[in-house]
């Protein structure tokens, strides 16, 4: 089975963030980056499927030169080769543009399965996977907790609300967006890291500029607001007023 896994590079989770001058994104010039965690689970799932069914795992990322770090990491963990859609403009592109760039790289590969993380740790739109499936013209299922390959088709377990799950079948080729915790991640091994140095990262041209469909207008830290309101009056009145405020304004019950 030929599997493509999309990896996003995100700013390290515990970084101290600062808003950039345009106030539309964080200052990432001096930030540390890491692999988007849900994508790490998608990669692990792909590696497990390969171990069971054979085939090839290709990791794909779209973004500036720095995203090669996550591709290298993917290769170190066991992916066979990597595709890099390189463009500085993709660093802040919207989900639609990213999906287009990824489709340009994955399309010609004619893969059987595409895996993405359910969503990204930074923006969390959960859109790239589904848009990419549409662009590739293949079936997709989201929030996947288990994958089974049965007779050239898939049976996957989706997570629903309230502790419910749903099993669905879909034909191959297909795209799945993988939920974190679906498996236990492997650690990076020395042998893997050494082998990764010899593996190929192929550059793919970014498709011609797509007009953004979505724009971040303003980015700011949540403002901490603390308001103190004094309730006066006789104890009975005050109590009545307090109940009303709690119910209608604070909506605690």
């Amino acid at each position, binding site marked *: 089975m030929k599997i493509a896994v999309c990896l996003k590079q995100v700013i390290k989770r*515990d970084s101290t963030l600062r808003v950039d001058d345009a106030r539309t994104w964080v200052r990432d010039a001096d930030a540390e980056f890491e692999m988007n965690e849900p994508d790490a689970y998608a990669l692990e799932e792909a590696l497990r499927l390969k171990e069971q069914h054979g085939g090839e795992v290709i990791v794909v990322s779209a973004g500036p030169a720095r995203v090669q770090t996550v591709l290298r990491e993917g290769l170190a963990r066991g992916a066979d080769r990597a595709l890099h859609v390189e463009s500085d403009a993709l660093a802040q592109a919207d989900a639609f543009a990213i999906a287009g760039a990824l489709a340009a790289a994955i399309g010609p590969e004619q893969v059987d399965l595409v895996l993405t993380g359910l969503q990204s740790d930074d923006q969390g739109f959960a859109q790239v996977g589904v848009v990419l499936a549409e662009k590739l013209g293949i079936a997709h299922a989201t929030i996947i907790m288990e994958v089974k390959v049965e007779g050239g088709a898939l049976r996957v377990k989706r997570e629903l609300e309230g502790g419910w799950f749903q099993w669905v079948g879909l034909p191959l080729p297909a795209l799945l967006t993988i939920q974190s915790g679906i498996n236990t991640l492997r650690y990076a091994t020395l042998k893997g890291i050494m082998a990764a140095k010899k593996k190929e990262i192929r550059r793919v041209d970014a498709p011609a500029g797509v007009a953004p469909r979505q724009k971040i207008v303003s980015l700011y830290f949540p403002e901490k607001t603390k308001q103190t309101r004094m309730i006066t009056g006789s104890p009975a009145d005050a109590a009545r007023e307090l109940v009303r405020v709690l119910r209608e304004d604070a909506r605690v019950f």
Partner: protein
Amino acid sequence: MSGIEVWLFRLVFVALVGWFASQMLTRYRLVMAGANNLSLDDVPGRVQRLVTEVVFQSKVIKAKPIVGTAHLFVFWGFCAFGLYTFVGFLQGLGVVDLSRRAWFHAYQAALVPFCLAVLAGIVFLMIRRGIARPAALGATVSRESIMIGFFIVTLMVTFLLEFFVFGHQASPTVAARVNWWVHMVLILLFLGLIPNSKHLHLLVSPLTLFLKSPQLQSVPNLDFEKEEVGFEALKDLPAKARLDAFTCVECGRCQENCPAFATGKLLNPKALILQNEAALLGGKHDTKLVDLYDENVLWQCTTCGACENQCPVGIEHTPVIIGARRGLVSNGEAAEYLTKVYNTLERHQNIWGPGNDSRQKFITSAGIDIFDPAKHEYLVWLGCAGALEADFQRSLRALFDILRAKGVTFGVLARERCTGDVAKRSGNEFLFQELATQNVDDFKAKQVKKIVTSCPHCLKTIGHDYRHFGFEAEVLHSATLVARLTGGAHMAADETVTYHDPCYLGRYAGEHEAPRQLLARFGATVVEPERNRDNPFCCGAGGGLLFEEHEPGKRISEHRYEQLAATGASKVVVGCPFCSIMLKGAAASANANTEFVDLMSYVDGKLKQAGARPDAGA
């Protein structure tokens, strides 16, 4: 000696010495086939150790005074008899007969007390082996030892007969010749038997001891450029480990002191070394080490260092165990309990998981400055536990208060990563080096010269392992520093406590006096548990085992807790965050209400209680 006798002796000599030499050559080749890892740093230190541990047998005697003294007698006797044997060979081979010279007679007379000492020693040791049969020695060793024992007794008796009876006869009688032959042939036979027995230590242990690293658990960095990945198969064992295998005297001291073995695990450090020996001789060069031992064995070692530290002949166990772990980890075959820790370390650079903001919150609430070399003398290294674990944060606050009260200037780094202790000891060298290089960069950028930490594992990692990254600083455990700062304090004893020496402090750093001084100064009478100071019994946390939840056999922590409880003290003072976690857990399972106090909290509490400080009671 008649001409026929001389020729006969030459024949026997060549045959037996030849047998000896061919066996030795086999072993020499096997040792030299390993990668050369023989280092000779600190030669004066090594020579000094050679004198105390070989000439004076200090380690043998310290561990077991009576047996050790008996062994010392036999050893000195052997040395004293060297020239006597040599003269015998010259005579027998027909080179020159010195046996009738006056000086030789005087030498013989001087040998008599040595001879009696050897006899006394060997008879005692034979009785011990044959009758008492200590378990650690194993069954087969005893039989072989008894035979060698008889050899030695016969050698001594024939010597005495020669000196007191036959030496005075004008012309040699048949009895005198028989006596001479028995003596000489036994020596040659003994020589021939040496290589394939534990008695090989007679010849090689001085070398092994000399080559043993001055630092306990010396496990050099892997060189990634050379594609080093650790020991996978037997052929990867380096020269020192091979020499070790042939040196083992099967005394069982390592086994007796191993916490894993004591609690019924599969791991036995003595068996490991002997398995190496057998496999080397058996030519199993391509056999994987995991198959040679048992897969589980390698993951049961807490890296407490007791085996290596107690071994009287300079054998280093931990480099083999950690080396073999590396071989597995490099292939993705780490024990299951480690996978999660590795993931956490990769993603969060600490062993617990919370982000840097949690550490930041702690620093802010404790009011600590960020280290500035122009303003601060010491860098306080928090470590994963100090930064993130609630109980140990309290201990760190206590340290901060003591330092402030004593006018010591200090700061902390804005950001710390785990030192990489767990990664290093459990064999994840890549992760270790990633963490270490980043920390070392930070130290260098901040011109750090003096570091104080309350975690003994950080102490060993920064103080010793980081030297391989070109970082040298004065690295102290908080107990050492606070003991220096409170020299004048004296409080009357008002309670009885017991103290648990952390392996990485008492054994590795050799720091067992400062904690006791502090306790004595601040009003505690210390009752010592079994296994203390430089040979403590491990709490079970080291080497990554803090994260192992399914320990086979009895829990090591439980065993240690029982030893501590047996002192009768209701308060246990500890100087390591991991010991503290393990022992508290063991006490909780035992439903005991023993109180555990970290050393720094203890001292700070007493200082405040005594109102010895302006902010007392604050």
